[in-house]
Each structure stands twice: as structure tokens, then as C-alpha cells.
């Protein structure tokens, strides 16, 4: 939700400065997506949390929250509103669905569609909305100000009164175009979606989007103002089925209080009256079928303190409730509040703990390591995995992980963002691919033989099993974790030599914040070159390595490393391997050859060193 700093200041002139405000949002209300400093205004894009979308998807709501939170004054503009005088009406509203809880309508005559006043255009544009015309803008201003979506119908396009009802199979409704759907969506062949209709035809998709044929146009002179309240689940299902995203949908699907409607109707009327002082306003027709009941909530200071792990006093709580203008009484440390109608999120004691915690600030909650009387048991699966993993590693096997999804199997997912819709039935297929990849890189990995394993879940009809797979040369062996664990504990899993010295860190890895930096590899192919030479026995490998290192250039990503040595007739042979690779391009043999020649030339300068 985009919030204009100037707009907020209408209500809270003492608002803290812009930088401070961003922190206040972050630590007491919700995440700040971005702060955009514009000429003369600052726009905060804040992610109102779902449980506060009943009251905070609006400038007024945010201003009230900030005023209470910061204990600064809130300027209520309503008393200053000019209320139009009103005449009797013939408007009839009939609600024929329990998914519409309230519907307020008001006929206004003698208006003229045209451009909006500057302040309206500026307010809309400041939060990234386009000005359309004075009437449509008025409904949008009211929504971004109060959080209540509203709508204008062209009265002269209506035949008879308004009926809110579920759609019938042959209802057809062309919706207003939008940036997302420039041609407008057509609703047809849909049964049971909630429509606002007249006696003959559908006018609008209730709570989501207006119809193209009933909305205001350049010639509109008489209108009906709509302020409704609808069941959130119904709104979400319909909008989702039709793939329509509107600001109205967003607000209704998160549930709004029907008590908000009269405020919005008053504001909308005032705004239109301000635009058209000569307009005739008829009486408001208010059909309120599903009344919101008054809710009370009990909680104790003691329990709140226990939940937060922070001592909160009765006085502190009383002070918060007063700032938030929440009616309460308390006996000792037990409070009973009357939940404000817009605060549909407050339903249990824990909700109040959250309110008090976030208002005080969670920085007040100090870290305490708990001591509880609990004796942990050993987890069998974990023990088995660790034992098998350690055994394999001690035999020189390295661990890999592959994807659980593949293109064939026994269990399929209903929908996937990828083309691989089946769950793997084995680890072997993935391990084969991994083997292929790592073999190509074996020189880079300094491996004579690639030895890998994976431990993971496989999925067959009616079962999920943990398997272990490892390779023996080019063959893959796959067993269940249980099978392999039994073999390991019985000591029968030992086809090769183990690592000699037991490594004590195997079972208890040292918990030290190991902050080595990961080194990303090059995505270009590498070239491996070996250099072998005879030197007198007195020459150590390090001497040779030094010469190579000094002359090998900058493209060696790995090495030189000694991969072979042997003695014969008073001489010693060393063989080194160098891996050339660029992070920017594919190297040519010619290029690598130049560096290699430089090394060999240097070696040839030594009288008793001979390249083999």
C-alpha cells in the first residue's frame, strides 16, 4: 500500500520526520518496501500485514494507528465536512444473497463529468494512481482514504432498483477495462457469482469491478453512489476464478467491517458536494442485513507478560488502551475491552499480547535462554543417516544432492511451474547424472576416481522411503537407509579400505562460525595440462612447484598439484597437474600452450632437470 506523507499529515500534523517514520513502520507496524522522495512529498510503500488489512489499507487508518502509537494528536476532519441537505428518494435496494452484508445507495442528481480539482489529481498521482474523471476519482480518493471501496453508477442507465444477487447462467456482464485487461473481462456462463444488478440486467461484479455499460460516461448527469460490504471468501473465489485483481478485491477479500460503510458514504457525499454545490442529494438507502455484533475480549496483564517474557504493568496496558481509544474496564490485572469494530483481528488474549508487544517494541523483549525440564530422546532416522554418511565419507565418498522431481515416476503432482511433474522413485538416475558431471571435472577436483553418494527420499505408490545411493566405478548401488545402516553396523559394508585414522569430528562437527568465502567456479571449460620431470633426489617437490608457479600465468584456477612421484637411479620424478580456466571466455589450446612453453623453457634452463 502506497502512503503519501503529505496525505498523512492532514490527520497527524505532528508526524515524525520521514526517516524516523520508516523505522516506526518497520519496528511497530509492518515492513517498508520502499521510500520514494518526490518533490514536495515522500511516498512509503508499506506491506500491510493480512491481519491489519481490515483497518490499515487506508491513509486514515494508518494515520490513526500512528497517532495512537506515538501518542500524537489526530485531527478528525469529519466535523468540518459540509453535509448536503437531502430529499426523499425512490431508490429501491434488494439484497438476495447472504454474501452481501450491507449495501448503501444514494441518488445524486445534476452532476457533470469533467476533470478533478487539482488536489484530487495530486493525491491520486502521488500514490501512483491515474486521474480518470471527477466522479471516478472521488470514489478512489474515498477508498485510499478510508479503506472502503465505493462505486458510481449512471442512474439513467438503470432500469428499476438495485438488486444484489447470485448470477444466473444466462447473465452477461462486460466489465470496465483496466490496464491489465484493456479490453475488459466479460462475465458469462457463470452461475453463482455475486452481481449488482437492476431489474433487467447485471451492472457490476459485486465488490470487485464495475460494469462497462452502467458506469459514468461523459454525458452522465445523475448517479447512484454505492457503498457495500461483502463476504471475503465469496469475493476471493470469484476474483480468482476470473483472474481479476483490483484494489476493491484486495480490501474485501481481507474482510472489512460493515461499520465502515457509513463513514465512507458520508465522505463520498461530501466530496461530490464539494465538486458540485448545485447537485441534489437524495436520502441514503441503507440495507444492513448481516449486522456486526459488538465483541468483548478478556485478557490479563500477567498472561501478556508471560507470553512476551517481559513484565508489562496494568498501568502500561491502560495507557495503551487509552491511546488507542479502546473502551475497557479492569479488575486488578484482568482487562475486558470492547473491540473496536474495524479491528476484526482482535479475537483472543494472544492477539492482545501481539498488540502490546509491537506497540512497546520487541526490542524491549530481552533474550533469555530457557531452562526446561526435558530429556531429549535419540532420533533413530538421524542416527542412521549420520552413521551411513560418515561410513561413506570415510571410504572417500563425497555427498551430492539432486532434485526430487523428474519426468517419470509413480507419484505425480497436480500442477507444477516446471515440466518435471513426477517424484523420483530412485536416487540412481540423479546420481548417474551427477557422476557424469563430476567425471568431466575430475581433474579440477583433484580426483583419480569420482566417488559420490546421495541420501534422500524416494516416492512410490503408497510409500515414501529414505534411500542411499553410491557409485562403484560406473555402476550405481542403491539401498534403503535401513539396509545400509544394518550393513554398516554389522561391519559387512566394507568393500574397500577405510580412512585410517578415525576422525573425531565425524559425529560432532565443531560448531564454530566457519566463515570461509565460497568461491564460484567458472562456467567456461577448463584445460588440464600435466608436466613431469626428472630432477636430482636432493630437489624437493616444493622447489619445482615454485618454478611452475612463478611462470604459469594468471589463468591457472587449480594447481599445480603433485599427482605422481617415484625414485629411480638416484633421480626423482615429479608429475604436476595444472588446470587452466578463464571466468570470461573459453581458452584455446594455443593460449594455454604459450604459458606452458614458458614453464618448460624455465625448467630447461636448469642443467640437471629433464622434462619427461
Amino acid at each position, binding site marked *: 500500500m502506497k502512503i503519501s506523507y503529505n496525505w498523512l499529515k492532514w490527520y497527524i500534523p505532528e508526524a515524525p520526520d520521514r526517516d524516523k517514520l520508516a523505522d516506526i513502520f518497520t519496528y511497530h*507496524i509492518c515492513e517498508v518496501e520502499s521510500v520514494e522522495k518526490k518533490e514536495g512529498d515522500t511516498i512509503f510503500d508499506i506491506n500491510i500485514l493480512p491481519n491489519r488489512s481490515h483497518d490499515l489499507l487506508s491513509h486514515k487508518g494508518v494515520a490513526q494507528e500512528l497517532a495512537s502509537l506515538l501518542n500524537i494528536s489526530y485531527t478528525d476532519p469529519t466535523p468540518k465536512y459540509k453535509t448536503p441537505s437531502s430529499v426523499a428518494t425512490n431508490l429501491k435496494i434488494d439484497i438476495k444473497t447472504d454474501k452481501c452484508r450491507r449495501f448503501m445507495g444514494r441518488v445524486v442528481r445534476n452532476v457533470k463529468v469533467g476533470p478533478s480539482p487539482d488536489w484530487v489529481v495530486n493525491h491520486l498521482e502521488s500514490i501512483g494512481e491515474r486521474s480518470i474523471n471527477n466522479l471516478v476519482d472521488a470514489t478512489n480518493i474515498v477508498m485510499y482514504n478510508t479503506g472502503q471501496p465505493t462505486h458510481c453508477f449512471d442512474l439513467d442507465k438503470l432500469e428499476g432498483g438495485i438488486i444484489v444477487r447470485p448470477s444466473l447462467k444466462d447473465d452477461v456482464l462486460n466489465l470496465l477495462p483496466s490496464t491489465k485487461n484493456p479490453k475488459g473481462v466479460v462475465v458469462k456462463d457463470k452461475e453463482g457469482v455475486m452481481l449488482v444488478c437492476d431489474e433487467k440486467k447485471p451492472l457490476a461484479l459485486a465488490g470487485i469491478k464495475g460494469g462497462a455499460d452502467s458506469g459514468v460516461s461523459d454525458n452522465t448527469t445523475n448517479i447512484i453512489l454505492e457503498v457495500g460490504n461483502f463476504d471475503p471468501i465469496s469475493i476471493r473465489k470469484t476474483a480468482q476464478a476470473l483472474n481479476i485483481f483490483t484494489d476493491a478485491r484486495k480490501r474485501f477479500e481481507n474482510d472489512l467491517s460493515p461499520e465502515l460503510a457509513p463513514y465512507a458514504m458520508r465522505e463520498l457525499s461530501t466530496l461530490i458536494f464539494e465538486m458540485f454545490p448545485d447537485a441534489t442529494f437524495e436520502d441514503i438507502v441503507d440495507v444492513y442485513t448481516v449486522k456486526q455484533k459488538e465483541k468483548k475480549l478478556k485478557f490479563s496483564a500477567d498472561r501478556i507478560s508471560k507470553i512476551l517474557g517481559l513484565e508489562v504493568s496494568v498501568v502500561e496496558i491502560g495507557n495503551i488502551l487509552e491511546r488507542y481509544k479502546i473502551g475497557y474496564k479492569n479488575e486488578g490485572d484482568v482487562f475486558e475491552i470492547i473491540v473496536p469494530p474495524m479491528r476484526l483481528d482482535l479475537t483472543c488474549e*494472544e492477539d492482545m499480547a501481539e498488540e502490546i508487544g509491537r506497540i512497546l517494541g520487541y526490542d524491549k523483549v530481552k533474550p533469555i535462554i530457557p531452562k526446561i525440564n526435558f530429556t531429549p530422546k535419540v532420533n533413530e532416522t538421524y542416527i542412521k543417516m549420520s552413521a551411513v554418511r560418515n561410513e561413506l565419507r570415510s571410504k*572417500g565418498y563425497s555427498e551430492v544432492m539432486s532434485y526430487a522431481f523428474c519426468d517419470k515416476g509413480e507419484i505425480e*503432482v497436480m500442477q507444477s511451474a516446471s515440466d518435471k511433474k513426477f517424484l523420483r522413485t530412485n536416487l540412481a538416475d540423479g546420481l548417474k547424472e551427477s557422476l557424469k558431471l563430476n567425471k568431466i571435472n575430475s581433474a579440477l577436483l583433484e580426483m583419480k576416481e569420482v566417488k559420490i553418494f546421495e541420501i534422500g527420499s524416494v516416492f512410490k505408490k503408497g510409500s515414501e522411503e529414505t534411500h542411499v545411493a553410491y557409485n562403484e566405478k560406473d555402476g550405481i548401488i542403491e539401498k534403503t537407509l535401513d539396509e545400509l545402516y544394518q550393513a554398516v553396523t554389522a561391519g559387512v559394508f566394507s568393500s574397500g579400505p577405510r580412512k585410517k585414522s578415525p576422525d573425531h569430528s565425524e559425529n560432532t562437527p565443531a560448531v564454530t562460525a566457519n566463515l570461509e568465502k565460497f568461491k564460484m567456479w567458472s562456467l567456461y571449460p577448463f584445460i588440464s595440462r600435466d608436466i613431469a620431470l626428472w630432477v636430482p633426489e636432493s630437489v624437493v617437490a616444493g622447489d619445482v612447484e615454485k618454478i611452475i608457479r612463478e611462470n604459469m600465468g594468471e589463468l591457472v584456477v587449480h594447481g599445480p598439484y603433485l599427482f605422481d612421484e617415484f625414485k629411480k637411479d638416484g633421480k626423482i620424478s615429479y608429475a604436476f597437474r595444472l588446470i587452466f580456466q578463464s571466468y570470461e571466455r573459453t581458452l584455446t589450446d594455443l593460449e594455454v600452450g604459450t604459458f606452458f612453453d614458458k614453464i618448460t623453457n624455465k625448467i630447461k634452463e636448469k642443467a640437471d632437470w629433464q622434462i619427461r
Partner: protein
Amino acid sequence: MNKEIKKGTIHPLTLLAEEAYKAFSEMGFEIATGPELETEWYNFDVLNVAKDHPARDMQDTFWIKDSKGEVLRTHSTSVTARAIEQAGKDGRLPCAFISVGKVYRNEATDATHEMQFYQVDGVMIGSIEDGVSLANLKGVLTEFYKKMLGEETEVEFRPSFFPFTEPSLEVHAKFKGRWLEMMGGGMLHPNVIKNCGLNPDKVQGFAFGGGLDRIAMIKWGIPDVRLFYQGDLRLNQF
């Protein structure tokens, strides 16, 4: 040469999972494991996720074809929920569980999003008198991130919303001078406690969960989450 076999290398996520298990075991947590193919009940219903909550949509969750009410778990909170339910039946309260496991989300992959990733998930509950609190959650997570990211690491809470916790928090850790969002957490919602067969008037506790892959990426500077699942040994650098 190479007469002695060189020990094989370990996948960085396993290394991190081991470190996490060790850190939490030292604080008295029991390791919990559970199925990746999970019921709708444990993945969503138990956790107070509303029937029409968007997280249940097919665009977000992998539902299993021809097997009604079965999903690939979208978080390992299902495991810790199962664990406290069982502990309640066995009369093992207070209790604390930690689970590191693979979870699945149906989303397009990029450098920071994967369809499969690892999550570390924990829970601690006790009687009201035991008073397992948000302060305790902060204590436990501060200790954990110090061990993961270094002694100087700080932890802070910011307001958030999850169906399964109340209050709900975002957990941020300060690493190399920057605050980073690490996980979500809070006090278990009374409905979750009820759904696990316990009485929310008598029992309270905290829960938390977040991506292990993300910790690994931050800790070691690994640039792309997809690197974890390529089967490429060049990843095993630690």
C-alpha cells in the same frame, strides 16, 4: 601416494544442518524427522491455515494427483507439530524439538527461489507456569545465529503475520553490518495448540522456521540457490 583414502567431502547444507542440530541439541532440543509427503491436515489444518488461504492454492503448493488431501510439505512445521502432538500424548511436557528437512513450493526458480529447499524448524512448549516466552525465543535464536554467523551477530524481532503464531514475528540477524531477514516465528497460536491435542489455557510455547539454504548463502556468499541441487562436487568447499 594416496595410500590412505582421502575422506569424502560433505554437502554444505548437510554441514549446516549438522551445525544447527548441534547448536539446538546443546540448548536441550530433541531432533525430529517426518515425511515429505504430508497430509493436508498436518501441513495446513493443524497450523490454523484457513481453508481458503492463498497458500493452499495449486500455484503455491504441490498437491498430489489422484490422492486427495496429500501434499509435498511446504514447511517442516508439520514435523514439529507432529512432534508436540506425540509429546503431549506421552506426557512429555515441557518439550522442545528441532527439525531440518526438505520442503517444496510450486514456484518458478531463479537465483533465490527453488522448488525444493531445506528448512530449519523448531518449537518449545510447556505449561503456563513454565512460561516459555518470546524472550526465550529471542534467547534461543540469538544463540543459534551467533553459532551460525559469528559471535558478534545480533538478532531482532519485527512485527509480522502467520496463521500459526500469535504474536508473529520476523526474525532478522545483523551480519556484516546489515540486518537480514532470516526466518519467521512467534508464540504458537492457541488453535494450533488445540489442534495438537493440548489445552491452550494451560500450555504455551514458541515456534520458528526458516530456510537453511538462505543461511548457507549468506554465511558463505553462495550466489545461487540452484547450485545446491546440481550434484556438482565443486560445491563442497567447506
